């Protein structure tokens, strides 16, 4: 009894004070953390119970050296078995409903997420166009329709336009951010604090996954499909952006930063970007991308529908910029 109370108290305390998660930079992240804390509380209780029983059993029920008799003939206890079937069932039900609710508040059920969710065929249409996923919207005749992919608008914002939409393109081994309203193209993501931000995710070559640990958000960017993440950053600062899906040898280096700016800072950044208006080639060249040479791209040429001339021109410019420019 006393042990039970102690166990409950320890679990409750640790569930709130584990300090295992990084800062939460959005309200949605706080929801996920609340869910995690609850699961931690239950988990610690269960963990202590099982390990406690094991340790006590080892000490209390050791066979004496000269004892050759068997233990008691107890081979079951139906009420007890019902209890340890029923309680876990209730626990997972509670966690299930709680998770469902959090997912819904995050915007998981927004039917408009990912815009036109048709599967876009990656076109290889005639000369001059290269086999990258269609960057400018989706194919209206494309395949069958899917539901939302990713996290859309939270229920309060359902049906509303986001304050800012950014197109995100994943390619080996970088993220390219395009701001359609201003034409800004950048290797780093800037978003205004407190605004409803929508990221439209695409992948150029293989599957990547866009992960914002401090926002507890992740979504695969899949070639030929659109997906999206929508959230409201509440805490200014800069945060890592990480590719979480194995995408090749330099997968580990596919990282950049997301800056959550105050509205004034964001405005200033925008103006400065528009004024300098870096060319896409410069953006890509400025990215820290290892080994973007011909040797490296050659095995991919086939699959990407690249012409040999393309590769040669790549050699000159030293980067995969052309591929991208063409498809933009």
């Amino acid at each position, binding site marked *: 009894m006393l042990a039970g109370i102690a166990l409950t108290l320890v679990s409750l305390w640790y569930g709130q004070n584990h300090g295992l998660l990084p800062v939460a930079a959005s309200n949605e992240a706080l929801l996920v953390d609340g869910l995690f804390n609850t699961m931690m509380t239950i988990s610690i209780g269960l*963990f202590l119970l099982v390990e406690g029983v094991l340790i006590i059993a080892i000490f209390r*029920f050791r066979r004496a050296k000269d004892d050759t008799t068997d233990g008691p003939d107890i081979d079951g206890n139906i009420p007890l*078995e019902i209890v340890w079937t029923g309680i876990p069932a209730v626990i*997972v039900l509670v*966690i299930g409903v709680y998770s469902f609710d959090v997912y819904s508040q995050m915007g998981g059920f927004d039917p408009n997420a990912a815009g036109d969710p048709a599967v876009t065929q990656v076109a290889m249409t005639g000369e001059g166009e290269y086999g990258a996923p269609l960057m400018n919207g989706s194919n209206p005749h494309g395949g069958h329709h899917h539901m939302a992919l990713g996290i859309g608008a939270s229920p309060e914002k359902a049906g509303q336009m986001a304050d800012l939409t950014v197109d995100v393109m994943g390619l080996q081994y970088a993220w390219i951010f395009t701001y359609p309203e201003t034409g800004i193209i950048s290797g780093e993501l800037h978003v205004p604090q407190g605004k409803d931000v929508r990221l439209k995710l695409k992948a150029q070559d293989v599957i990547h*996954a866009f992960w914002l640990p401090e926002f507890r958000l992740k979504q695969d960017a899949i070639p030929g499909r659109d997906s999206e993440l929508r959230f409201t950053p509440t805490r200014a600062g800069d945060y890592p952006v990480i590719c979480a899906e194995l995408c090749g040898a330099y997968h580990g280096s596919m990282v950049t930063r997301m800056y959550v700016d105050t509205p004034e800072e964001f405005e200033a950044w925008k103006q400065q970007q528009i004024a300098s208006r870096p060319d896409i080639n410069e953006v890509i060249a400025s990215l820290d991308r290892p080994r973007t040479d011909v040797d490296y791209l050659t095995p991919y040429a086939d699959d990407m529908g690249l012409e040999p001339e393309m590769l040669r021109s790549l050699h000159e410019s030293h980067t995969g910029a052309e591929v991208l420019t063409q498809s933009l």
Partner: protein
Amino acid sequence: MTQVDIPASVPAQSSPHAEAERKWTDFFTFNSDHKVIGIQYLVTSFVFYLIGGALATAIRTELATPPSDFVSPDFYNGMLTLHGTIMIFLWVVPAGAGLANYLIPLMIGAKDMAFPKINALAFWMIVAGGALLLSSFWLETPQSGWTSYPPLSLVSGKVGEGIWIFSLLILGTSSILGALNFVVTIIKMRVPSMGIYQMPLFCWSMLAAGLLILTGTPVLAGALILLAFDLLAGTAFFNPTGGGDPVVYQHMFWFYSHPAVYIMILPLFGAISEILPVHSRKPIFGYRAIAYSSMIISFLGLIVWAHHMFTSGTPAWLRMFFMIATMIIAVPTGIKVFGWLATIWGGKIQLNSAMLFALGFIATFVIGGITGVMIASVPFDIHVHDTYFIVAHIHYVLFGGSVFGIYAALYHWFPKMTGRMMNETWGRIHFGLTFVGMNLTFMPMHELGLLGMNRRVAMYDPRFADLNVLCTIGSYILAVSTVPFIVNALWSWFKGKLAGDNPWNALTLEWQTTSPPAIENFEGVPVLTTGPYDYGKTNEALESPSTDTPVLSS
């Protein structure tokens, strides 16, 4: 109790039917005796374990420091892919098949498996598939992870990927042939006196695992064949460049590979259910609940695969369905864990190496089970999917679960297989090193994943350096921990103390014959005189293990 009720019989060696002698060369041939095959599986898979383990040590060495400085990043991905593939398809799965081969016929009183030739074929396919996979070291390593998602797998080297696909096709076929044998043998070949509820729980869990293999593996084969077409013939089933859908591959892959995790744990669930009662001298608690829970796990295991795809192209309602279905699996899993705890509670525990590993199994597996429920929760999994948190989860279940279970089983059945005891002191040292090393390696990975370290990376953010050093130290302890085991096993095999037929005074049938069993297993058809777990059913004292334990009569 038991043994006393059983009329003594002559030792098998002196019986006229047992003139056939086991030669050591049998172990290197196409032999159809299930006991030979079982040991072939176990030894072969252990060799692959050492190779997979060497790769793991190299991986951890690379990760000891943040930059990519030990091997090239391409080769790192090659090592990563081979490590995962070897550990799953050449270590845990075949080790489970090895135990099943050795034990099922003995436990149910049969002379052999239902299809002995197919059984031998299945084993030799492991050797072939394994050799093919290892050839990639010299030709080109596969580099797209053990999951091999297209389009990456289609662009990271045709030779390596081709080797990987064909090797897996061979290993998968072997697994299907093996499972066919297990299922038919268990259903059809029990001694007449053994009803389905007198069957040892290991057989129940192998029945469940066998059914999963038979259902899931053909789908994996389908996915692999289509992938091979995309890779080699330029079709576009999964290749988005030609209008294919890479997400379909993920569905097909996980339709097999989630059940695969149960294929890898169910045999050891079964082994633990055998080992605990023997060394606690108490009946298994809730036989039927444990037996049914295996079957329920096996069924539920078939309808949860997309929990590996929560952040992929999986729409919201599917995410929710697979979340709930996955969480429900925790219930039958919990039934087992609580049943095991109740089995040892109040028993007379002998803390030998087999028991230490069995208790270690419960202690560590439960952590993997708990994190399993956490990552089944979609909002939380969105954060930790494809991070070191998942790496921690899979190793708590596969190392803390399957590998501890295999070790427990090896210590427990070694006397039966070889006729000799293993050394207890070295067994305990082995356990201590393994337990400490395992927790040191994998516990910090939970925190790494939560903080933001993604998996399958050769280079990482320097702020994760300290925890990674801990993991690497732990992995070196694990590497060292296998040494006492290998020395102990080899030495004991030839020089260990003679075991006698039934050194643990166990009640299941395999202990009622000689150690090692004669080629035809039993003298005639054994008759059950006791249930598999009837410890303490009478008040008679146990026979002391040193006296000649009588075997079952015909």
